[in-house]
Structures are given as structure tokens and as C-alpha cells.
């Protein structure tokens, strides 16, 4: 069941989900700049392998801008730092708040990119597969709503186009607002109407009994075991290392980045974890080149 051309896409949904969750949690909650940077680096390295070029460029562009904006705005919101750099519009800009902003922006970007990678690897059938056993109804609702979002926006566009040609355009000012409200209510009506038909189709096919089978089948192979155990081990190593190592604070005065042995181990473990999928993808592609040359 290969979803896209990536090796990550071949993994069993459980391994992939746990891997992504580990990386996301560590990146989000650590706050240590070294961890943040490793997370961001790993995400950037994996992104081109699982998404198409257009999405990658668009996301990088958007995130580049938001990193700058968040970094620049933070000093004006938070006045906590003590190392004063300069005064702008009677507000003291401190080194700490600037760096905190930058770190936060980097975490934000890393989470977005990891999220996008996860979305591309974990196709809807994998999510419903995972949830199907624990919460079959939730899985069903999820699968239906995933289908509904594109339908809804497409329909809104079509309504507006078709009515425009009849000379029933949006109008201006207040009219525009009431027109939008009407279109929205029509859309809601349309979706309710459709859901009646969908519900009928479900009922007609005997939906509603408690026990449900599943169609999908994913083999849990060696690579799944390897990725799953690597994810769990490295995350545990990182957590222990960070807990035992030195602390790091931005406010009130930025502390030195801890660099004892345990800290180095924690950084190393997370760096390997974050860069792992990109390495897997590269190795896999090299292998393919090798196979192809043999063919």
C-alpha cells in the first residue's frame, strides 16, 4: 500500500505516527535552542522528500517571513529581558526577548513543517486505520469530514460564479454582507441536504451495527520495528539527558547553553532522531539508483 514515492510513506501507520509524535513533542516543549535547531533542520531535510516542490517552496517562503515577523514583534510584547540593546518608540528592546522570539519562531516553523510532512505521509486511510479500532465512530466522522472540506469550498466558488453570470453579483457594502450571509446559509442547507442523502446511503448499506471490520492491512516489518524502537529509545535518551543536564532560561537574563556530557548526549540523541527520516530517504534513493543500474 504505497501512498507516495517516499520511504516514510511505506511505514506501518503506527510506527510513523509514533515517530512524528515523538519529534513534535520534543521540539515543542524543550525550548532549548539546540533542540529547536535540530528539529527545524530535520524537518527541512525531510520536507522535499515527501511533498512536491511547489508546496515546499511556498511553505518555506511563508515561514521565512513569519520567522522575521515573530522575532521582530516579540520585544514589543514581552519586556522581560535585562540586556538592553536599544530603545525604539520608547520601548526597550532586549537581547533576551529578541532571541526568545527567534527561538519561538523556529519552534513554530519546525512544528508546521513536521506537521506538513506528517499530513503527507499519514494519509486519511492510515488515520482511520489507527483510530478504527479504538474509536470506530470518530474514525468514520474523520473520514467523512476529510471528504467534506474540499466539497464545501468548491461548491462556494461555483455558487458565486454561477450567480454572477445571472447578474446576481455580490453587490457592494452592506448588500455584499447580506449576500455572503445568504450564500453561506445556502451552503449549509446544501450540505445538510447532502448529508441526508449520504446518511441514506450509509443506512442502505447496513451501517450502524457495533462491530465493524476493516479493509486495510499494513504489514509490520523490520523497518517498522527499527523506526519505532529508534523513535522511542532516542526520545527517552533525550528526555533523560535533558532532565539530568543543565537548565536553560531566556528570562530574565539569558543563560549559557548547557554543554555537559549528559546535555551533549541528549542533543546527539535528538539530532539523530530528527535527521533519521531524511537519512532513510537518501539511503533508499541511493539504493534505488543502484538497483536501477543493475536492471
Amino acid at each position, binding site marked *: 500500500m504505497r501512498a507516495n514515492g517516499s520511504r516514510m510513506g511505506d511505514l506501518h501507520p503506527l510506527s510513523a505516527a509514533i515517530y512524528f509524535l515523538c519529534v513534535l513533542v520534543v521540539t515543542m516543549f524543550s525550548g532549548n535552542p539546540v533542540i529547536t535547531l535540530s528539529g527545524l533542520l530535520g524537518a527541512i531535510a525531510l520536507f522535499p522528500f515527501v511533498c512536491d516542490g511547489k508546496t515546499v517552496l511556498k511553505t518555506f517562503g511563508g515561514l521565512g517571513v513569519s520567522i522575521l515577523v515573530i522575532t521582530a514583534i516579540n520585544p514589543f510584547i514581552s519586556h522581560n529581558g535585562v540586556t538592553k540593546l536599544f530603545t525604539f518608540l520608547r520601548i526597550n528592546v532586549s537581547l533576551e526577548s529578541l532571541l526568545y522570539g527567534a527561538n519561538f519562531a523556529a519552534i513554530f516553523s519546525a512544528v508546521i513543517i513536521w506537521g506538513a510532512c506528517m499530513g503527507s505521509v499519514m494519509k486519511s486511510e492510515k488515520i482511520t486505520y489507527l483510530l478504527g479500532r479504538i474509536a470506530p465512530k470518530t474514525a468514520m466522522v474523520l473520514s467523512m469530514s476529510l471528504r467534506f472540506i474540499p466539497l464545501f469550498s468548491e461548491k462556494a466558488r461555483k455558487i458565486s460564479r454561477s450567480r454572477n453570470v445571472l447578474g446576481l453579483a455580490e453587490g457592494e457594502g452592506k448588500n455584499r454582507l447580506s449576500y455572503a450571509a445568504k450564500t453561506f446559509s445556502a451552503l449549509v442547507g446544501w450540505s445538510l441536504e447532502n448529508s441526508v442523502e449520504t446518511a441514506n*446511503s450509509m443506512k442502505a448499506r447496513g451501517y450502524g451495527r457495533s462491530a465493524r471490520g476493516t479493509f486495510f492491512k499494513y504489514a509490520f516489518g523490520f523497518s517498522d520495528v527499527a523506526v519505532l524502537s529508534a523513535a522511542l529509545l532516542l526520545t527517552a535518551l533525550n528526555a533523560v539527558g535533558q532532565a539530568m543536564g543543565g537548565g536553560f532560561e531566556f528570562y530574565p537574563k539569558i543563560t549559557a547553553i548547557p554543554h555537559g556530557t549528559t546535555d551533549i548526549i541528549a542533543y546527539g540523541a535528538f539530532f539523530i532522531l530528527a535527521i533519521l527520516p531524511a537519512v532513510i530517504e537518501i539511503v533508499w534513493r541511493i539504493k534505488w539508483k543502484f538497483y536501477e543500474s543493475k536492471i
Partner: protein
Amino acid sequence: MEILRIENLSFTYPKNDKKALDNVSFSIEEGDFVLVCGSSGSGKTTLLRTLKPEIAPYGEKNGKILFCGEELSSLNSLKTAGEIGFVSQQPEQQIVTDTVEEELSFGLCGICTDREKIRRRVGEVVGYFGIEGMLGKKTSELSGGQKQMLCLASVMAMNPRVLILDEPTSQLDPISAVEFIFALKRLNRDMGLTVIISEHRVEELFVAADKIAVFDSGCLISFGSPYSVGEYLASSPKAERASLMLPCATKIFRGTGGVGRAPLTVRDGREYINKNFKNGVCKKVVPGAQAHEKADVAVRLDKVCFKYGRERPYVLYDCSAEINRCEIFAVLGGNGSGKTTLLSIISGLEKPISGKVDILGKNINKYKGNSLYRGVLSALPQDPQELFIGESGREEIEQVCQDKEKAEAMARTLEIDGLLDRHPYDLSGGEQQRLALCEVLLTEPKILLLDEPTRSIDAFYKKVLAEKLRALKNDGVTVIMVTHDTEFAAEVADRCAMLFGGELTPGERPEEFFSENDFYTTQAARISRGSFENAVTPEQVIGLCQKNKAMEHERQNEKK
């Protein structure tokens, strides 16, 4: 073996005095292919839904429905869910899940929890229906025809004994529709599956069915083999409306005063004409006078190129056309040939990459703001629901036309005046299409664009629509329609053109266009090819036959 027996079935919807089904009785044998037909609102859908307990309509029901000898309502829901399959007319709304595999296994997962068995069944139907190409896709990526085929496969995976289909092809183009019906016939033949299908486009099914049930305002007016039903429809005064849906060969047979067993198929029709009318001298229809030799051009396309994205293929390439004022111009073409795109270019919704579009002699870009859509041009979208945002039909038509009497009159012509107080979504497919048409016609444009105007409309309203379009033409309106319906195009169009490979062929009169086409043509043209040169509608064939007969008579009289 008798699989379904219906005895004195009556049904009334709540808050409704009129019976939707009135004392209906008939029986269906296992392995029968039953066609249920009748004009819209005649109770077809009500009947079919009552046969499927899970989705039976609410209301007062009298009479008996026996499934394999047992009362349907007393049966276990697990049994009826699996053994009676149901496919409705809206492929889009019937699909529940996001991916093709999930959809195929949806019903099965409910009645069976053994994964290996589910996979085997799904594998079986995928192979049988030949839909391997759909696997791994998202359901939203599929075309309408593929979606409907997926619905059918998903129901068939549950291994039903009876398959009920409510106008399954009404949202499909004719090519996908024929493919779908072919799949049904094959299921019926290969598996001995009992099929009960309602349809308004009955040309193919009329011949294929074992039994036909004809409904008129809730009553079963005729039930039996295609021949006997054909006989009844052609002769009974009660069935005047329903007789419009007879196959072309039967219409010609009746129109020429044939006696005996009426032909149903194209093959039988050809034989009938060859035998009786071939020796005539009159082979050609005299086309009406060419409408204004040098007429004004209403829409001019000059080397228009268009595509939806930089890396996507061209939809229109070097496409040029001149459409005259006061003419009905029909654009025909296969699926995905760009017909709808062509209309959105003409209506200014899409801008061509290169080339020029002139509307009434003025470049389309020179129409500022909404001036193009105020009294100049108006369009009927492919899906009528795209127009409806009001609470009632009346609100819908009054927002395009302040003159209430005029709006009412138009609604009366299309026979939807009685439905105006209902919510647009509560109307049937055909009624919605007529309401949308009414709305579009009320904008009184100089140029009218119609995208599949005859979709889900039955034979009777097709005639009404044809008359309305001709009247509009005489009032100076230019009509450009995109359609798959060759019969309709042959009847109303002044010129027809084919869109293929991004280019439009030069427009020809339907007599020339359809008589030169071998595949993409009308039933009448297929029947009369060889005997006559350019007859493309049943009326033309009948006319020629009668002329020939008269000449034959004269000749014989002279001999005497």
C-alpha cells in the same frame, strides 16, 4: 421463482392528501430486469424507496410487500441491508468516505468482520468491474461516471439478490450512462441478479428490460414485456405523455401507420423501413431556408487558447467560431473535451491565454463591471443547485425578475408554478432543472448559454423546452448550448459543431452533421441511413416515409 410481490400498495406522504402510490400490484421473478418509468413526480422514487426498508419514506403505507414470500417489514435488518442493494441518482452524495478502498469495503465492513473475507470480496468486485485504476485514489478525484460505478461496485460487494437503482444515470453523460447500463445488463446476465431500475432516459433500457412498469400520478398504468407496453403506450389515450419516451423505431412505426408488432431496436427499425419505404424516389429532407445568409455575428471566438495551469494540457487550442445572432448553436463532444470550459470562456468566467472573444461585436474585456451580465448574456450552470440560495422557488425567480406576473407565466410554461412555495432542495432532479431554467430564461438575455439543458428532464419537458427555445430564437435571442443529447440537438439546433482536441469544427446544419456522423448521431439517423440521406429526427423520417408512400400510390394509379 417469485422474488418480490407487491399487493395493493398505497402510500401517502404526511400532510399530503394525494396518494403518491395508489393501489399498486405486481410481481417480479428472480433474474428479471425491470424498468420502472413515468414522468417526474409519478411515484417512481417513492416505490423504489419503499422496497428498501432502511430508507423507506415516512408516511401512511397500506398493502403488502413480500420479499421471497415473507413480509418485507418483518425481516431482519441485517438480511435486507445485504440482500437488497440500492443505488440512488446522486453519485456525489452516496459516497461516504474519502478513499476508494474504504468506500468499496464500507458496506461489507458492516456485515462481516473477517478482514480476509472483506479483502477477497473487494478484490473480486474490483476485478469484475475492471476498476483497478481507481484504487489508491481519493473519491473526490473521480469523474461522475466513475463515482457511480464505484457506488455500484460497493453495493455489489455485499452480494445482494435484488438491486434497486433510482435514476442512476441521470447525472451522467451518455457515454458513461451507456457504460453503466451495460454493467447492469452484464450483472443481470452473468449472475442472474434481479435488477429494478427507474430511468427517464429509456432508449437503451426499453429494449434491454424483461418487464416494464409505467407509472402515471401514482398508478401503475401498464406492466409487462417491452412489446406489450410499447403497444399500450402507443395506443392508449391515457398514456399520451408517456408515449413520448417510446424508442425511436417504435415512434416511426406508429407515425407511419404500421400495423402488427412494433420494432423496438435500431436493427428492427431499419428492417421495417427497408421493407416498406426504400423503393421511393424521395430520399432527402428539404432543409428549411438557410437562416439569414449574412447574419450578424453574436459571438466570435478568434484563435482562443486556454488551459487551467502552466503544466496542464491545453483544453482549447486555436479554437475559432462564429455564432450568428438568432440561431441555436449546439456544441457536442465527448467527456472532458472542454465543452463546459468553452462556455465559461464565452461567459467571461475564464480568460483565454491568447485569442479574442467578441460578444455582440464588442471585445469581451470592454464590458466593464457586470455590464456583460445585465441583459447581454446569461448562463445555465451544469448543476442547477448552484443557483439556489433562496428559501423558496418563488424567492429564486423573483430575484431575477421583479415583474411577478411575468415570473409566474414563465413558471407556468415550465409547469413548476405549483411548486414555487417549496424549498428548491425539496424538488426532484427534473424539477430543479426546470426551476433553474426558469430563472435563467427570466433574465431575458440576448445570448443564452445552456450547459446540458436536458439533464434529468423527461421526454415531455424536453419538448416544452424545445418549443421555448424556438420561441426565444424568433424573439432574437442567440442560444448556445453544450449537450450530449444528440436527439435534442437534432431537433432544435440550427447548427451543430463538435469540440475535439481543443478545436471546434465548423458549424453544420443538424441534417448534415448527424447524417455524416456514424457513431455520434441520433437513433433516427441510424435507422434511416442507407434508405434516406439526411433524415435525423423521427419526424423527418416519418415525413419522408409518408411522402414515399404517397408517390408510390400515385405511380400505381398512373399504371392503372
